């Protein structure tokens, strides 16, 4: 998928050959690309990344969304948090001065745009300072770690997942964005009931009329505004953010939500294939929400996921038993990373932990490894009785933990007696500390 970055802009290929013939210590220059606001090159494969608008989500999916790729969000039951993520995504575009495209079939796009959260814009440093946890991550904890010195060497991921603070912004969900600011950015909308006559003649195609109209409208916009990488390069380039709300719902004229074996099973997947083709050849980045819990046939959801690049699923606690479960009292729901993209490389580095939960705070949509799993697996079984602290004095705590650096913490913690500061192990740890 280097299309936008390498062949597309025409910086990559020529320089690559030069780098091969010259010394190996040549500094890679990325030309004008970095000058597009709100983007940065990936550390792994040099892809141009944009932020999703949620800093911790950027971290979870490997640094951000690569330009030319598609993020799939499986909606939570009432579409409250997935809609929030869509709004963050669009708001980030407004703040960075990107162009927007919003397609919807249920709510008029203007309505969604009016609800965009207000950015916390005083200063990026201040924005990070507001969030205690974010600051903790950035400042390496040089001086603030006097009391909790034992946890100093624990991975920083444990407190909050935050990528670099320069990239991506924070938003205050209790306020809406200033209309003036919103109108400064170019925004195109697609509202299905306006675009499509109720009775349209059926063309024989793999895609239904609604999706085809949407795809055509995106294609026209890309050609008209010069977002495709084949366009002349003298113009200043910008990013187009495309958000599509609730694709696959019956309102798009799709019946995959209604039947187990729908008559029109390939409409959505064909659309996504065409959409992927458009994205790959242009400076666009897409976000699609899909009500996956409504889709009856799981195989279709599997294919939809494979046609997207990054896929995450939100599972909100609202209305479920977990809402009242004390294990989950700190969170609003679980976040599953279904798929991360392999772009221009064989492997893709992803964070170690896959047990993530989210909570929506006023100024932050925080995604964290959730403590419930820790509590459940770290609690040692009752068989080995906890010895009196005197017996263990002087023995380093490290002994109780598995020492192999590579096996994942959850695996290690399964072994009996490996409590490291969990519920059961807490007693030992405290007494050890008291002993020292």
């Amino acid at each position, binding site marked *: *998928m280097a299309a936008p970055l390498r062949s597309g802009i025409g910086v990559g290929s020529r320089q690559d050959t030069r780098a091969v013939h010259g010394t190996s210590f040549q500094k890679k220059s990325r030309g004008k690309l970095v000058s597009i606001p709100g983007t940065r090159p990936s550390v792994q494969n040099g892809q141009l990344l944009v932020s999703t608008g949620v800093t911790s989500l950027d971290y979870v999916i490997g640094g951000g969304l690569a330009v030319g790729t598609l993020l799939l969000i499986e909606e939570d039951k009432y579409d409250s948090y997935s809609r929030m993520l869509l709004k963050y995504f669009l708001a980030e575009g407004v703040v960075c001065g990107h162009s927007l495209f919003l397609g919807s079939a249920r709510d008029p796009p203007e309505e969604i745009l009016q609800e965009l959260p207000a950015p916390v814009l005083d200063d990026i440093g201040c924005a990070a300072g507001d969030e205690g946890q974010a600051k903790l991550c950035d400042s390496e904890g040089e001086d603030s770690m006097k009391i909790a010195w034992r946890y100093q060497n624990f991975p920083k991921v444990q407190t909050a997942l935050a990528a670099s603070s320069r990239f991506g912004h924070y938003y205050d969900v209790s306020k809406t964005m200033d209309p003036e600011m919103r109108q400064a950015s170019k925004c195109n909308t697609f509202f299905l009931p306006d675009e499509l006559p109720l009775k349209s003649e059926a063309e024989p*195609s793999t895609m239904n009329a609604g999706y085809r109209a949407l795809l*055509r409208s995106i294609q026209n916009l890309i050609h008209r505004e010069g977002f495709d990488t084949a366009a002349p390069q003298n113009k200043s380039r910008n990013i187009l953010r495309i958000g599509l709300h609730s694709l696959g719902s019956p309102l798009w004229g799709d019946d995959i939500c209604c039947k187990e074996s729908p008559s029109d099973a*390939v409409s959505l*997947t064909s659309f996504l*294939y065409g959409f992927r083709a458009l994205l790959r050849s242009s400076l666009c980045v897409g976000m699609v929400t899909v009500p996956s819990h409504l889709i009856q046939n799981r195989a279709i959801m599997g294919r939809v996921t494979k046609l997207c690049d990054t896929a995450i699923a939100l599972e909100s606690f609202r209305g479920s038993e977990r809402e009242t479960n004390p294990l989950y009292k700190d969170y609003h729901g679980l976040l599953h990373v279904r798929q991360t993209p392999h772009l221009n490389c064989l492997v893709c580095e992803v964070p170690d932990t*896959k047990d993530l939960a989210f909570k929506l705070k006023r100024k932050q949509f925080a995604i964290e490894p959730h403590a419930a799993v820790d509590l459940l697996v770290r609690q040692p079984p009752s068989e080995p009785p906890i010895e009196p602290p005197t017996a263990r004095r002087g023995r380093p705590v490290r002994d109780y933990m598995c020492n192999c650096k590579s096996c994942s913490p959850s695996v290690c913690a399964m072994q009996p007696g490996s409590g490291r500061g969990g519920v059961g192990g807490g007693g030992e740890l405290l007494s050890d500390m008291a002993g020292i």
Partner: protein
Amino acid sequence: MFPELNSILSISPENIPQGQFVVLSDRSGDASFLIHHFLSLYLRAGCKVCFLGLVQSFSHYSAIAQRLGISLPQARERGQLVFLEGLKESLGELLLEDVGPGEGPLDFLRCPQSDLRSLFAFVRRSVSKGVEWGPPVLLVDDVSVLLSLGVTVGALQDFSHYCKAALCRELKGNMVMLVRVEEDEEEEQSSELLLKALSHQCSLALHVQGLSTGYCKDIHGQVEVCWRGGAAPTAGFQQQKKLFQYKVHDKGATFFARGTSSAIL
């Protein structure tokens, strides 16, 4: 090209078997790293390669091939590689735009439930040109995406059968197809059916699976290598199976027997 996999399969660029039909498949894992292996292997061996890249752009394959020491743009210029970029070609067909006369390779996208005759004609055309290169090879990444585009399993079976007859029999070449299967096993899905049908036709199958215990940083999954019929290195009628675990690196992959990962030992 991963040397370890070559020694497992007893293939090398100097010694390419003829008439082999390889099926790569995955379930809850990602077998696409194998297609890059085979692409670089056959290019290095000097075969004429026809690559149907249906899921990624050319630059993606090219960037990875460069890491594996092969330049795809050069191979394309020399005429060794014919690359069909599905994403680029499909857009006009999906949007029913008017193109000039003559059939595009993907014009089956225009009407649902049609056959893959035009795609086969494209493959046929591209492998028959370029006699200065070695035996022709067809690689498809991946076949199951065609199911998402409305092609039936029957049409895909026909396509693979025709390709096999043309490439493996007639031209003494090879064929590699990747099938990705959805994770749910309980239902008889079309991708499952497709995998069964192709596994029945193939001479070598590599099936990638994620670990049943879940994600692990050091072991990315396991791959089952299955020789069928006379293709096994030790000639015999039964099919022979071997199971390995693997880890994909930046520039290759390592394969090891189960439980012997460097993270464990």
